[in-house]
């Protein structure tokens, strides 16, 4: 893994989007007794890093377990990497890695032994498994610790070991359930860096989290779940950009607002900051013309960006 002829697979750009979705579900339903956990979820997810966001109990982990074939869908269709989960569960599992939120590590094994075993369970021959265990532990920053018992590891080291076991057999897709749970800020940064690098390894990832900033930082496609239903599913850029222009002026904002309204814009003023939207025209052009007409100096101007939290809270309140 360190060097070698094949390192050219790691690139900084995203691999080309495959035409077929990596995950496709249709009218998926699942319930724990009377409690509906997944309610009519239909998705087509492209390759890349996919964020799965939602409050606790939104159905994120349940959806991941259905994708893995651990929980059987009550109804609906699920395909992962082109394989129907209902009939080709083991085929799916041989191509997928899974990092559960809860502990999954045996404390009485060394990291190297456990990773080697995890690779063998993924179908790799013994020698290749041991080599990859060593390589992947280096990749997640645990090479020096590989012969220590996992029971002696800190929470951050355990999280990295969990990620390592999920990718050690080189899956095409990895499902990460709350990968930053329980980590301190430094550990969280390292984990997010590792997750961000997965795409460069040719591994697609579905990252479940209720920490929206983690998803914003690592993902290029977002699925929002609430109460077992999909609120939104789409590219992160579509969710975070708006037609709204935000400008801050030096001086009388009311004069600019009045000019903008005369030009047909809807304006909200907060101190010296104005938000302009225009149903028919170009909000940027209106802002420019209003500033000229009012003869007020400009401090800054740009498209208003919404955070994932804005979108999530907005969608949630619409429900």
């Amino acid at each position, binding site marked *: 893994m360190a060097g070698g002829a094949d390192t050219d697979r790691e690139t900084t750009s995203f691999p080309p989007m495959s035409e077929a979705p990596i995950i496709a579900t249709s009218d998926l339903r699942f319930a724990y007794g009377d409690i509906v956990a997944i309610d009519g979820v239909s998705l087509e997810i492209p390759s890349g890093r996919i964020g799965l966001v939602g409050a606790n109990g939104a159905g994120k982990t349940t959806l991941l377990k259905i994708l893995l074939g651990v929980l059987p869908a009550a109804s609906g269709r699920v395909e992962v990497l082109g394989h129907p989960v209902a009939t080709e569960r083991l085929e799916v599992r041989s191509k997928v890695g899974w990092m559960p939120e809860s502990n999954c590590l045996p404390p009485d094994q060394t990291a190297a032994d456990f990773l080697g075993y995890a690779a063998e369970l993924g179908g790799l021959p013994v020698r290749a498994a041991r080599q990859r265990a060593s390589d992947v532990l280096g990749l997640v*920053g645990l090479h020096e610790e590989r012969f220590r018992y996992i029971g002696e590891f*800190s929470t951050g080291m355990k999280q990295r070991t969990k990620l390592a076991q999920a990718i050690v057999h080189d899956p095409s897709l990895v499902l990460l359930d709350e990968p930053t749970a329980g980590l301190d800020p430094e550990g969280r940064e390292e984990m997010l*860096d590792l997750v961000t690098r997965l795409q460069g390894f040719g591994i697609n990832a579905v990252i479940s989290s209720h920490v929206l900033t983690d998803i914003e930082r690592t993902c290029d496609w977002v699925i929002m779940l609430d109460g077992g239903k999909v609120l939104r599913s789409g590219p992160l850029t579509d969710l975070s950009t708006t037609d709204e222009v935000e400008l801050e002026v030096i001086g009388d904002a009311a004069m600019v607002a009045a000019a903008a309204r005369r030009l047909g814009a809807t304006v909200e003023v907060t101190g010296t900051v104005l938000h302009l939207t225009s149903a028919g025209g170009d909000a940027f052009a209106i802002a420019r013309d209003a500033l000229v007409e009012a003869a007020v100096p400009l401090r800054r101007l740009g498209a208003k960006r919404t955070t994932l939290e804005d979108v999530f809270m907005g969608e949630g309140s619409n429900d």
Partner: protein
Amino acid sequence: MTEGVVFDLGWRPYDGPRLGRSGARRALYRDGLRRVLGLRRRARRKVLPFALLAIALLPALFFVAFGVIAGEFDPEATLFGHSQYFDLTGALVLIFTALASSELLLPDRVHGTLSVYASRPLTTADYVAMRAASLATVVFGFLWLPHVMLFLGRAWVNGFGSYVTENAEILWQTALSSVVYFAAYAPLGFLVAAFSRRASVAAGAFLGVVTISSAATRGLIEAGFDFMGLFAFQHHPGYVKDWIMDSSTHSWIPEDAGFDPSVSLLVIIVVAALSGLTVYARQRRAG
């Protein structure tokens, strides 16, 4: 505190052979063997299994050495006869099974490692079968190796050819008896382990169920409840072993209760099947 450094060593995709489900099953089997024997674990994990193995083998080794040095041995001697040897190894294997069955099932469930198996090309049936196969291999070796040593030692002293041809049936009889002991104890051990959260509790509960059931049933039979002989779990394998080897080493409780050895064999099979199904259902629910 920085606990490690993430080195950018690049990534090399794996493009070698993938062994799929069969490879995963073999890995599971090998891991089971290592767990049972404490290999690649802390030193204290190795002490008990190897101590029990040594206790099982040492008498056979001693006898073979003694016979070889003396140049003869009494083939009628009962102390180290094949059938009597099961009295020693049968008790040891009961303790061994108690420890090994909980070691095989319990940590995976308690530490959440079942979720790793759930993400690999394995089924619950694979998991249970391979864990059982690991235990079967070690228990069989545990029980049968001393007999092979005894057989070879006696053959050596007696000049191989004639001894081997005249006594070859001992090998399959002891092998079959070893399988019976495994079938009688291991499923019960797995059953208790599947519902326990602590290895020590599981081992203690298993030993308690097997030994106390025998003591209790003897008393009940003497009080006239003959059918209770069916629940003398510790005595069934010995009774069947004597049947297989055409010997009589003990007064077995099922025998005292008037049951044929074939009934004991049937009890072993039924208990094993029911225990196996229950363990499967439990593991499926836990995984």
